[in-house]
C-alpha cells in the first residue's frame, strides 16, 4: 500500500514537473534573452554569456513604455473594480432572487462571452470615434467591462450559491437591512470568489491586445501589449528583440504581484461552521 502511494506520488511529481517545464520554458527563454547583449542575442545559449541590464535601461529610458505601463495599470484596475462590483451585484441577484427575465439575463451574458470579439472591433471603432471615446481610457475600460462582466457574473454566482441562505435570513432577523446583510455577512464570505474573479478579470484586461490596438492611436491610452508591438530599435537596422523581451518580463511582474497579493486572501473553507452540513 505504502509502496503504491510512493510510486503514485513519484509519477504525479514527474507529470507536474513536465507540465511546469513545458509552461515555463518560453518564459525563462524570454528572461534569458532580456539579459543578453545584442551581439549574443542569437547565439542559442540558454544562459547568457554576457549579462547586461542595457535592455531594461532602454525601455525605461523611453517615455513610450513607462506611459504605456501607467495606462495598462490604470485601465486594468478601473475596469476590474467596476466589473467585480457590478458582477457581484448581478450574481447576487441571480443566485438569490427569482425575477422575471432571469434566464434571459443569464442567456444574454453567456452570449456576450461567446461573441467573437474581433467581429465587434469595427463597430466599436466607429462608435467610439463618433462619441469621442476613441483613444481614451474610458474607450478601453468600457469594452473591457462588457466582456469581463459575463465572466465575473458566472464565477461569482457560483460562489454566492455556496453560501447558505440561512445566513442572510439570520442577518435580517438580527436587524440588518438587505444592504447590511450583503455587506457584513455575505460579501465577507464571498471574498474568495471576489478575489478569484478580480484576478481573472485583471488578467483579461491586462493581456488584451485586440481592443487595445484597434481603439487607441497614441501614447495617451496605449497599453503595454500594444506598446510592445511598436517598439523599434535605435535605428531601423537594429533589432529591438532584447528590449521587447525586457518589457515582456517587466509587464508580467504586476500580474504576478497582483495574483500573489490576492491569493493569500483566497482561503478555502471560509464558510465552514456556519451551518451544520
Amino acid at each position, binding site marked *: 500500500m505504502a509502496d503504491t502511494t510512493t510510486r503514485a506520488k513519484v509519477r504525479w511529481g514527474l507529470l507536474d514537473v513536465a507540465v511546469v517545464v513545458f509552461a515555463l520554458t518560453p518564459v525563462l527563454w524570454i528572461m534569458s534573452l532580456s539579459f543578453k547583449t545584442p551581439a549574443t542575442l542569437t547565439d542559442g545559449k540558454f544562459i547568457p554569456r554576457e549579462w547586461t541590464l542595457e535592455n531594461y535601461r532602454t525601455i525605461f529610458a523611453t517615455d513610450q513604455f513607462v506611459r504605456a505601463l501607467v495606462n495598462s495599470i490604470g485601465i486594468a484596475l478601473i475596469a476590474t473594480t467596476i466589473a467585480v462590483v457590478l458582477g457581484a451585484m448581478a450574481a447576487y441577484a441571480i443566485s438569490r432572487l427569482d425575477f422575471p427575465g432571469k434566464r434571459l439575463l443569464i442567456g444574454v451574458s453567456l452570449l456576450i462571452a461567446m461573441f467573437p470579439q474581433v467581429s465587434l472591433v469595427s463597430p466599436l471603432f466607429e462608435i467610439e470615434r463618433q462619441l469621442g471615446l476613441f483613444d481614451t481610457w474610458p474607450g478601453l475600460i468600457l469594452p473591457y467591462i462588457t466582456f469581463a462582466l459575463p465572466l465575473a457574473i458566472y464565477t461569482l454566482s457560483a460562489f454566492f450559491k455556496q453560501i447558505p441562505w*440561512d445566513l442572510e435570513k439570520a*442577518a*435580517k*432577523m*438580527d*436587524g440588518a437591512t438587505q444592504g447590511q446583510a450583503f455587506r457584513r455577512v455575505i460579501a465577507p464570505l464571498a471574498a474568495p470568489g471576489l478575489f478569484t474573479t478580480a484576478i481573472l478579470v485583471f488578467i483579461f484586461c491586462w493581456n488584451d491586445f485586440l481592443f487595445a490596438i484597434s481603439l487607441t492611436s497614441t501614447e495617451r491610452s496605449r497599453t503595454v501589449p500594444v506598446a510592445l508591438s511598436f517598439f523599434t530599435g535605435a535605428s531601423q537596422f537594429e533589432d529591438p528583440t532584447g528590449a521587447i523581451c525586457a518589457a515582456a518580463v517587466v509587464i508580467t511582474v504586476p500580474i504576478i504581484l497582483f495574483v500573489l497579493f490576492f491569493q493569500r486572501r483566497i482561503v478555502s473553507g*471560509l464558510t465552514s461552521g*456556519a*451551518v451544520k452540513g
Partner: protein
Amino acid sequence: MADIVLDKVSKKFPDGTTAVRDVDLEIADGEFVILVGPSGCGKSTTLNMIAGLEDISSGELRIGGQRVNDKAPRDRDIAMVFQSYALYPNMTVRENMAFPLRLAKLDKETIAQKVEEAAKVLELTPLLDRKPANLSGGQRQRVAMGRAIVRQPKAFLMDEPLSNLDAKLRVQMRTVVSRLQKQLGTTTVYVTHDQTEAMTLGDRVVIMRGGAVQQVGPPQELYDHPNNLFVAGFIGSPSMNFLTATVEEGTLRTALGDVPIGDRIRRELEGADAPRELILGIRPEHFEDAELVDEETRRRGMEFTAPVDIVESMGSDKYVYLSVEGERATSAELEELAADAGAADFSGAGSNLVTRLSAESTVTEGEDRRVWFNLEKIHLFDPSDGRNLTLHEGRAAGTLAD
C-alpha cells in the same frame, strides 16, 4: 415581550399552492407555543411569516397589538434560531452574539456586558473567542440561542433548533430550552416535527396538517382528547392503535370482539347519514394483561385473546405486539401519518396491535394471551372526515358514555 396574534393568516405561493390556510392563533405574552406537524404541513412557513421572511398573502399578523404584515424582519424586534444555526463563520462567537447589538447601534460597553451575560447563561464564556468552525454541534446550537437572547427581543422564533443534534444531546438541550424560556419569560414560537418535543416543551401545542390547524391545546389535552384521527395518530409514541369497527345491532363489531356503546354514541350513530364503518382508536397503555387486572377495573373494560407476536421489555413496562385479524383501518389521515413515518410501503398482513403492559406481566412470544382494554379510554373516528365521535364538549369519554 408581547403577544402574537395570527388572524386568518394564509400563504399562497405564486405557483398556486396554498401552504398555510386561514390560521387563527393567539399566543399570549410569555407563552411557549409549539407548531408541530409532518413535513410540508406549513409550520415553517407560518413561522417565517411571523418572522417576516415570507410575505403574508392574506390575513393579519399582530405583534404586541400592532399590525406588522408589512414590516421588515428588522422592525419586528423578534429573534430567530435556525435549524442550521446559521452562525456567521467569519466572526467569533463573541462577534456573532454582538452582531444584532451592533446593528442596533448600542455602545461598546453595553454590548460587551450583554454578550457576557448571555454567554454566562448559556455557559459559553470560555468559547467566546472561537470561530464557529471550531465548535461542536451542541456548542454551535447554544451560540445560535445566545445570539437570539442577547438583545432581549419581543419574541423568540425557533425553527427545529434541536433536530441537528444527536439523540442524547437533544434531550439535554430540550431541558435547557425549557428552562431558558421560563427564566426569560419571553413569548416563544417553536417549530418541530417531533411530537415528543412538542409534548414536553410547550405550554400549548398547535397541530398542523396540509396548511390548516387541526387542534390547539395543552399537550395533555391533545393526548387525551384528540379532535380527529390525525391528531390522535400524530401525538403519542408508540402511536394509537387503529382498528376498523362496523356498527351492527347496537354494538361495534371489531377484531377484538363486540364493543358495547353508550347512549350518546348510539344516538349519534342513529342518524340516517351516520357512517356504518368506523375507526376505533386505543392507546397502547390502555391495554393490560388480563391476569393483572382487578375486578373493579375489569368491569370498565373488556377482554380478548390474541397471539403474541413480539415482546419488547423496556424495564419499566413491556411493549407487546399482538396479531389481530381483520382489515387494517384506512383513511387519508392514517396514510399521511404512515407516509410521514416512512412506513407507507411497509405493512404486514392483518393488523398489528401495540400494547403497553405492566412489567410484571409474564407474557411470552408465541403464546395466545388474554388481554384487557379500557372502554372508557377508547376513541371512535369517522373515517370520511376523521372526526372524533367520542368527543363531547371537548372531552373524550370512551364509547360507553351516556
